[in-house]
């Protein structure tokens, strides 16, 4: 059974169809890329999967359970984590706090326990904190734990956002243009980083990337979106050879 299954999902904003009949099936442990020109509906697909938008029609299943129409926080609790195209860190909080805020989804002490700082509360807080620090060390941010998120260099902020999403212990991780705003060198090291965390955390990854060359390097399977429609799906060679994709990216020769 696929971890994430999107079938026949359509989203209309008034008369505009942002995404039409989108289908996706992610098997456990896959790394799949979603590419397409600007405005082709990539981020809309993410918003539909994570509940930020409700699909006009269609079904989204996570491990067989229908999740479309649920609130974003419910979908996060069920196991889909995401990052954002324009970084959305908790900027004025520390790196550690950013991660613990995600990790604490797994701790369920009561309000009374929190107000009175009971031993059970202390134990659980320590656990969340230790796990968050371990996670930060794993992604190479261990020595930055007490810095404010906004004081990190841009590349580290991108990593922190991924670490924060991983702290939710998700089944599926959605990365929205993780290399946006990076130079080619930085992008390459980020792609290594993504492959690395996929092995370490055994998470299924679905990522949007604007730069074709980067996504070709790490994704064994790629979907191409244009004007809300899936125009191609396959491995990097098939995508590169597909005339529809070339037309979408480069335009068509007028005869």
């Amino acid at each position, binding site marked *: 059974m696929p971890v994430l299954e999107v079938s026949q999902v359509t989203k209309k904003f008034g008369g505009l169809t942002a995404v039409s009949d989108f289908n996706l099936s992610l098997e456990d442990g896959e790394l799949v890329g979603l590419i397409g020109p600007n405005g082709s509906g990539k981020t809309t697909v993410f918003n539909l999967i*994570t509940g*930020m938008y409700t699909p006009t029609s269609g079904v989204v299943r996570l491990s067989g359970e229908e999740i479309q129409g649920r*609130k*974003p*926080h419910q979908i*996060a*609790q069920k196991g889909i*984590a*995401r990052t*954002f195209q324009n970084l*959305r*860190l*908790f*900027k*004025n*909080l520390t790196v550690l*706090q950013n991660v*613990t*805020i*995600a990790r*604490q*989804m797994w*701790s369920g*002490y009561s*309000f009374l326990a*929190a*107000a*009175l*700082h009971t031993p059970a*509360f202390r134990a659980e*807080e320590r656990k*969340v904190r230790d796990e968050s620090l371990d996670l930060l060390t794993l992604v190479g941010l261990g020595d930055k734990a007490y*810095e*404010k998120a*906004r*004081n*990190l*260099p*841009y590349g580290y*902020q991108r990593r922190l956002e991924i670490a*924060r999403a991983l702290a*939710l212990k998700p089944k599926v991780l959605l990365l929205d243009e993780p290399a946006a705003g990076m130079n080619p060198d930085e992008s390459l090291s980020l792609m290594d980083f993504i492959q690395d965390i996929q092995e370490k955390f055994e998470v299924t990854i679905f990522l949007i990337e604007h730069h074709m060359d980067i996504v070709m390097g790490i994704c064994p399977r790629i979907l191409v979106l244009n004007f809300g429609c899936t125009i191609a799906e396959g491995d990097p060679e098939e995508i590169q050879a597909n005339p529809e994709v070339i037309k979408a990216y480069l335009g068509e020769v007028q005869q």
Partner: protein
Amino acid sequence: MAYFQGVMLIICVNLMGVLGVSLLTGFTGIFSFGHAAYMALGAYASAIVVTRMGMPFIVGLLAAGAVAALTSVVIGYPTLRLVGDYFAIAALGFGEATRLLLDNGGDLTGGPRGFGSIPKHTTLPIAFLIVVLGAILMRNILGSRFGRSFMAIREDRLAAEAMGIDTSRFRMISLAISAAYAGVAGSMFAHYLTFLQPSMFDMNKSTELASTVVFGGLGSLTGSIVACVILTTIPELFRPLYLWRMVFYGLALVSTIVLRPQGILGTYEVSIEGLKGLCRGKRAAAGVDKGGGRSCRS
């Protein structure tokens, strides 16, 4: 001496209200210009329970907190759907409506003539005890998953939602706690003055609470406390100057906004360890201050 004690007591009352507003505005990022109404509801609830029903003061305090919190949930349910300035405006409207309702409350509230002969229970030690308990409780909440959720909502509501935080629910919890604090403040006030009038809880009082929190620094609990002590003391220090004293109050506020827009303490918290570090050398405090940390690479 009695005068000095009176000022201290008013500081305690204001502190209780400011702690609540600090949670809502400083830590959850929701501005409210209607918190005087929750103080008023707490004050009248407590006065009615103790004076008319003959209950002990502690029941009055609890009733005050409960009535204010419950009202905030009823009011918050529709109005918390509004974001940003619109919620603040709705809160302002609620504040004025509450004052007018109390004005027209007939025998129950005494109307504009006021509610008199409330037994005096709020002595300085009791007020101090309540505030200290309130501050400790608030600090504990802020240091838990609840506090971090509030701060996450303040920083970025959408990202908080994507991290599995039910932001609508947590905004409501924050409002209810802050209203309960304001309600308890009202109860303390009622049993100190022994007399209540709806005009005591007008928009000025709400604005005073909100501006104290901004003055101290949004996101700093100790900042709110320091600000409350300063802003309650200034008008008293300049009392011989009659109405001119409010000019100094205004001057203090305006100069903070001009010279230190992030508030007295910014988001920095004063702690015993921090103060010890400050005594050993100023290096420790300078290291924590956020100003110097901005990286040129970002």
